[in-house]
């Protein structure tokens, strides 16, 4: 029987990681992620795992690199400026074909920014935020329940692809308290992989964790192509609301999608044909979700960033054939009534009416 409890988003994420078999955490305090670190500082001991408060995010992510090399399920978490420092390790994890889970509890702004919720790290997270030629699966929870469920899933996906998986949580999801059904405890055997370092007899093949193209040579290109093609074919996740007959479809993830759900309900009550596509994977972007929108005249992303970062992916998903609008503010979560008014305006304009 699963437990149903009231928990803060960050703490539900931490507990779910342990239940997924994660027994290694290293991190550094930064708001609004810190509750994950605080929770694991006592809870990791209870389950017999290893917890380290590192000297920096660089040290933390590279400790994760070491733990992952040894076959463990390993986690590190951060926010904003700290997440930028994780990029070195994420790039190395990708290059070395290692699984790990890295959480970004997104906050507002570039530079120091501030501690309130934000969605400005979309490009950084979905395009491969470090150096080199890589992307990672990115999961975007929109509730405390999904903070738990997607973290649980993230470890499986990381292992399936031997690739780091990123969680795009945000300050609102991390700080809110909701009821959550916690997943069952799973055991993880760190000796189950043939590739992980563990020592061996002199006659055995020695395991070398390194940039895999050193050992793979020209086959590396096909190996990587197939890996990403498989992710894009098998891992697109999304939730659709009232998309089939919709003339305007919102596209929103994380905390913004919660407002859009309400806006769809409100707009429908007013007779407006409005729907919502909520990407759960930001990479691979759920392009399949857009096939269902057969009556759509326009899309509108709602995201807490100025540069309309997700609109790139919506245009690509629709072959640039349908107008894509952006709504949202850096500073606050959108207001439902304002979104309904924007929806009405865009539908009228799309039908050839006046645009005010």
């Amino acid at each position, binding site marked *: 029987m699963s437990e149903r409890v009231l928990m803060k988003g960050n703490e539900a994420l931490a507990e779910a990681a342990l239940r997924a078999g994660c027994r290694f955490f290293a991190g550094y305090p930064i708001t609004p992620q810190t509750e994950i670190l605080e929770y694991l500082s006592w809870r990791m001991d209870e389950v017999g795992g290893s917890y380290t408060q590192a*000297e920096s995010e660089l040290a933390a992510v590279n400790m994760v690199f*070491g*733990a992952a*090399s040894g*076959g463990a399920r*390993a986690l590190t978490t951060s926010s904003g400026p700290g997440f930028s420092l994780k990029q070195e390790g994420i790039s190395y994890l990708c290059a070395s074909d290692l699984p790990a889970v890295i959480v970004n509890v997104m906050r507002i702004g570039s530079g120091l920014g501030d501690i309130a919720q934000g969605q400005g790290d979309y490009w950084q997270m979905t395009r491969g935020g470090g150096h080199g030629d890589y992307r990672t699966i990115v999961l975007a929870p929109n509730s405390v329940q999904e903070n738990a469920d997607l973290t649980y899933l993230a470890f499986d996906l990381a292992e399936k692809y031997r690739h780091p998986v990123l969680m795009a949580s945000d300050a609102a999801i991390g700080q809110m308290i909701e009821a959550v059904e916690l997943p069952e405890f799973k055991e993880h055997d760190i000796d189950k992989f043939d590739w992980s*370092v563990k020592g061996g007899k002199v006659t055995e093949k*020695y395991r*070398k964790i390194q940039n895999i193209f050193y050992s793979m040579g020209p086959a590396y290109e096909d190996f990587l192509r197939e890996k990403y093609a498989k992710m894009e074919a098998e891992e697109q996740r999304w939730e659709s609301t009232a998309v089939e007959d919709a003339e305007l479809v919102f596209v929103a993830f994380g905390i913004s999608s919660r407002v859009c759900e309400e806006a769809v309900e409100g707009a429908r009550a007013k007779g407006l044909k409005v729907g919502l596509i909520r990407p759960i994977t930001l990479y691979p972007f759920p392009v399949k979700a857009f096939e269902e929108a057969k009556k759509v005249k326009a899309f509108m992303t709602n995201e807490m960033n100025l540069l309309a970062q997700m609109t790139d992916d919506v245009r690509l998903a629709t072959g640039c054939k349908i107008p894509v609008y952006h709504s949202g503010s850096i500073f606050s979560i959108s207001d439902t009534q304002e979104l309904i008014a924007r929806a009405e305006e865009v539908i009228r304009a799309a039908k050839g009416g006046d645009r005010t």
Partner: protein
Amino acid sequence: MKLKAPERVTFNKSGFCPGCGHGVAGRLIAEVAEEMGLADKLITTVDVACGSLHLEDWHFDTVMAAHGRTLVTAIGLKKVRKDNPVLAYYGDGAGYAIGMAETIHAGLRNDNVIAIVVNNAIYGMTGGQMAPTTLPGQKTTSSPYGKDAARFGKPFRIEDAYSGFDIGYLARGALVGAANINRAKKMIRKAFEKHMNNQGLCYVELLSPCPTNWNLAPLKAKDFLLDEMTKHFPLGEFKGGDAK
């Protein structure tokens, strides 16, 4: 005198330059691991520069870490594989420049790993630039008129930085001459023994010649190491030594 070649190092062609100390260090580590019966369990982490050539030379499971993060990579690994001896192998640039924060905090926490740090007073792989260990007046490709210690600091000494920390073992050896090499091997062995006894950070710095980037023939490089380098980097045991 009986010499037995260790099984854990290759005798195929190596990438190290003639006169370099890395090959000696790699062999000593393999000898100690075999003599102590730990070779089947040892896991190593290497940095990105010259020392990473041990990836090919060593018959151990090995992780190649990011530059300067070799020590913390080993620390993460050891925490999930407590039954394996774990050794981090890197150079002075990794340890005392880009990885200084990791070096200090591993000492502060007294993390339970072996660190073997090869100090050749310059950056070797990138072609001989000035490092925090470069001697005053030493010419390098990025200090062509000689290192100005007033601008760039005196050579960094780990025994000064770790003086207040309770770490398991700290020693400095040199990879030139039979007597020094034998002594270095004893230091490496002591680090392994204390590591297996879970005594925390067991750290051996090894002075190594770099004839290629010092622009000296191997024998002259040996003299430079013994005559000049040891003035700034005294040999011996600083913490956890049993002698005296």
